[in-house]
Each structure stands twice: as C-alpha cells, then as structure tokens.
C-alpha cells in the first residue's frame, strides 16, 4: 500500500482518460505527457532502498575508493539512467506531435481528429 506506486498508476490512468475522451489534439498531447510522467515515477520507485543514499561518491568516501558499505547503502542507479533517456525521447515526440498539430490546423481549419477524416483536399 505504498503511495508512490498508487500515484504513478493514477497518473497513468488520467493520461489514458485524456487520450480516449478529449476531442482536441493539443489536449491529447498533454495527456500523453501526463501518462509518460506517471511511468517515469513508477520506474524510479522500483529501485528504492529503505534509508538509502544517492549513488554518487562524495566527501569521505572518495578517500578509500569503492567500499562495500557504499554498495550496501545506495539506491539503484539503472532505472535513473533509463528514465533520463526516456525523458529526452518524450520531449522529441511531443515536439513533433505539436508541430503536426499546427500543420493540421493550417491545412484543415479544425483541431478535432474526428472531423479530419471527412474533409477532402
């Protein structure tokens, strides 16, 4: 019953709700962003250790190099690296989707994805 997982899945559900029900392309892209943020929160919460420190050597630990006590007290570094990559990819996707939305508005005059199929030319 931990709060991190529940809120991550709640954000995911809100993102899916936006994608299914809204009738405006810009609002759908906002829903995409909320969904992806929920997933990132879930991934990072998977690698947490109770009372852990950040996986960065600093201060006194630098003098004796890598010690076993650092590896016994730090949180998982792998989900943080993967989420870094995922955030950049999310930014690229949303930039391209919003540019296509501007292009569609210039060409069709409407931002409703259900009306775009029926216009010709």
């Amino acid at each position, binding site marked *: *019953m*931990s709060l*991190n*997982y*529940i809120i*991550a*899945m*709640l954000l*995911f*559900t809100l993102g*899916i*709700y936006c994608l*299914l*029900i809204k009738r405006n392309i810009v609002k759908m892209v906002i829903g995409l962003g909320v969904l992806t943020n929920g997933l990132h929160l879930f991934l990072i*919460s998977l*690698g*947490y*250790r*109770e009372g*852990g420190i950040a*996986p*960065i*050597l*600093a201060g006194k630990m*630098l003098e004796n*190099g*890598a010690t*076993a006590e*650092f*590896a016994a007290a*730090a*949180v*998982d*570094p*792998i989900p*943080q*690296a*993967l989420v*870094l*990559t995922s955030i*950049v*990819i999310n930014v*690229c*996707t949303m*930039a*391209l989707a919003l*540019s*296509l939305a*501007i*292009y569609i508005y210039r060409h069709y005059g409407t931002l409703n994805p259900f009306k775009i199929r029926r216009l010709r030319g």
Partner: protein
Amino acid sequence: MRQAVALILVLAVGALLIFTVNAYLLPFGRFPERRIGGFENESVGKRILEDAPITTGSANVVTSVVWDYRGYDTLGESTILFTAVCGVAMLFRVARRRS
C-alpha cells in the same frame, strides 16, 4: 454513449492497475531483492555499484551507467533527438518567392 463506454473502460483499467501494483509487486523500498520464487539478493544494479568507480573511474555512478555501460542507448537517443529536430525544422519552412 461512446463516452460512457470509454469512461467505464478507463475506470476498469485503473482499478486493475492499482490492484496489481499493490498485490503482486515487492513492497516498496527493498532494492536488491528480486522475486523469483523465493527472494534472491543479487541484482545487476548491486554489481554495478560495486564495480563502477574502479572500472570506469567516475564518481557519479549514474553518468557512468549512461555513457559506459549503456553507451549505445545514448547514441541512439542522440540520433532520435537529431531526427526530431530535423522534422520540426522541415515542417516550418517558409517558401520564398523568386521574383
């Protein structure tokens, strides 16, 4: 009508996700333990935490994972960034009139 069906579907998916997360995952905050039948105590992350400052020489383990252990992923991500920016710049070209 369509909106009611979609709302029910979203609520069902949400309830299923929250139930699954609470019942079938490990409790929050147990990092090296993995769940394979019993609870094991070895992870790739633990091995990287022991190895990284000696093998790569960097004090920041996350940066060494991004560039040394997973360098190809970061190279592919740079390619994605480049392609997306090329696409955005292409969509907004203003045609100049030659007169």
